[in-house]
């Protein structure tokens, strides 16, 4: 049987169909959580952010324009929630908090140096890198998600890649 489209699920969920809402959740939970994890670098925060993102998305489902794709909209909520939380932490501490990603075993075995370099990126750059390479969004979709001009997204991506390249080169020389 053909899988229902996001649009079908959104329309049914809007009418209170919990099965459809659960279907949307299962379809996007993993991606939303991984995006939240990649931005925050902490499992506990990723749990909070992704859960909160779905809660907000479902609360606002009545206002969602179902002619647009659901995934980027959800990722926008999740990314903004992650940014809000990290910024709130920064403001609470009155200084830049050290990012201390709790490296999972999968990462420990993988590209650990790259992960560390991503964690060192400025928050705004890190988010576009995560959305581009972690979630697979296009610069245009990222621009819409973060309410930024496409040029800003492209320049942040370019600068982030340049910074990552430099830090990896330094590491290689050392």
């Amino acid at each position, binding site marked *: 049987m053909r899988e229902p489209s996001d649009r079908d699920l959104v329309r049914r969920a809007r009418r209170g169909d*919990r099965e459809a809402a659960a279907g949307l*959740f299962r379809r996007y939970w993993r991606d939303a959580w991984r995006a939240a994890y990649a931005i925050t670098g902490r499992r506990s925060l990723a*749990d909070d952010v992704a*859960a*909160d993102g779905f809660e907000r998305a479902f609360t606002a489902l009545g206002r969602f324009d179902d002619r647009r794709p659901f995934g980027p909209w959800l990722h926008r909520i999740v990314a903004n929630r992650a940014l809000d939380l990290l910024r709130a932490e920064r403001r*609470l501490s*009155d200084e830049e908090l050290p990012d201390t990603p709790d490296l999972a075993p*999968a990462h420990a075995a993988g*590209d650990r140096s*790259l992960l560390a370099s991503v964690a060192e990126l400025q928050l705004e750059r890190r988010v576009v890198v995560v959305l581009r390479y972690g979630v697979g969004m296009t610069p245009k979709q990222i621009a819409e998600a973060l309410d930024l001009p496409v040029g800003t997204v492209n320049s942040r991506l370019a600068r982030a890649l340049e910074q990552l390249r430099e830090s990896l080169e330094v590491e290689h020389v050392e």
Partner: protein
Amino acid sequence: MSSEVERRLEAMFAEAPEPDPGAGEEALHRALRSLQPVAPPRRGLRTAVLALAAVVVLLVIAAGALAAAGALHVSLGAKARPRPAAAQLTLPMGANGIAAIVDGRLQMVTKGGFRLQGLPVSAVALSPHALFVAAGIGNSLIAMAPDGRRAWSHPAGGKVVAIAWAPDGLRIAYVVDAGRHFVLHVIYGNGIHDNTIDRSVRAVRPSWRADSLAFAYVGGGGRAVVYDLGHTSHRVADAALPVTHVAFAPTGTKLAIATPSSVVVGGKTVIKAEVEALGWLRGRLAVAAKGFAPENIFFFAPNQASPRGYAAHGFVAAVTPKLVVVRNGPKVFAGRTTLLSVPRNASVGDVQVG
């Protein structure tokens, strides 16, 4: 063309860790609870909307004509957004920290020089000795050490409306607005082991007993309830309804309970008055009462002998263990110290001195 870094990034994210299954289940449960069914648009409704739009258009045309004739002055443009209240905060002598919410924004300063102003919060609580601050931000409970070294956030499932930190600092009781009702939780001071204590309570700040093994709160029916953590038991305290404030003494086990017209301690009514604020100041029960001018704050000796009344010269915003905090116009003061200067119409809440 994809660069080496881009390829490595894609590979790295492809290997990113997976969420815990338990987290997914909890998140799904929360998400489904937040689902708000929307009725499909009806033709009648659509017609009504179109008719309303037509009326609005006609009114705009009429207003335009009047404006052109000079009979009506029309101003267009975005209304200026109100600026957040600017507040001056001063730490009183001997205190480790002071926090308050001014027009929905946190104002905080600690002895160590940590100053935080402007963060939008729904509730705030200082830990003992102001070593930590807990705040409701969005739908989360967030805690932070003033040096910024340790922090955690916990999804509360709604707006946090009241927070109370246990005297030993190990636990936090907090009340969450869950939509149709308020829910009481207790969480460890390090942000783990969140427990739901009561699914229907009033939005009143809980008060911890001095030994940190129990706390009082106001249940959904308006009764004062004491929850004992050791026995995980609830005991309803004897008092009239509805309870508006609860305050455990800073030593011992005495609990003061305020209703709209009286204060009860140990089952005995100690004063009949409309209560503005309630607390224990230097071991004595302090009640700020309305309608007792010129005295409006009363101190009760430990044996509950006749109270002594004083004039507070303003609205009593809080009774803390060491200070009575009074609001008078733009000034919030304690004794001769002005703790906060705020815009005259600003709202001030959750004043805490640690």
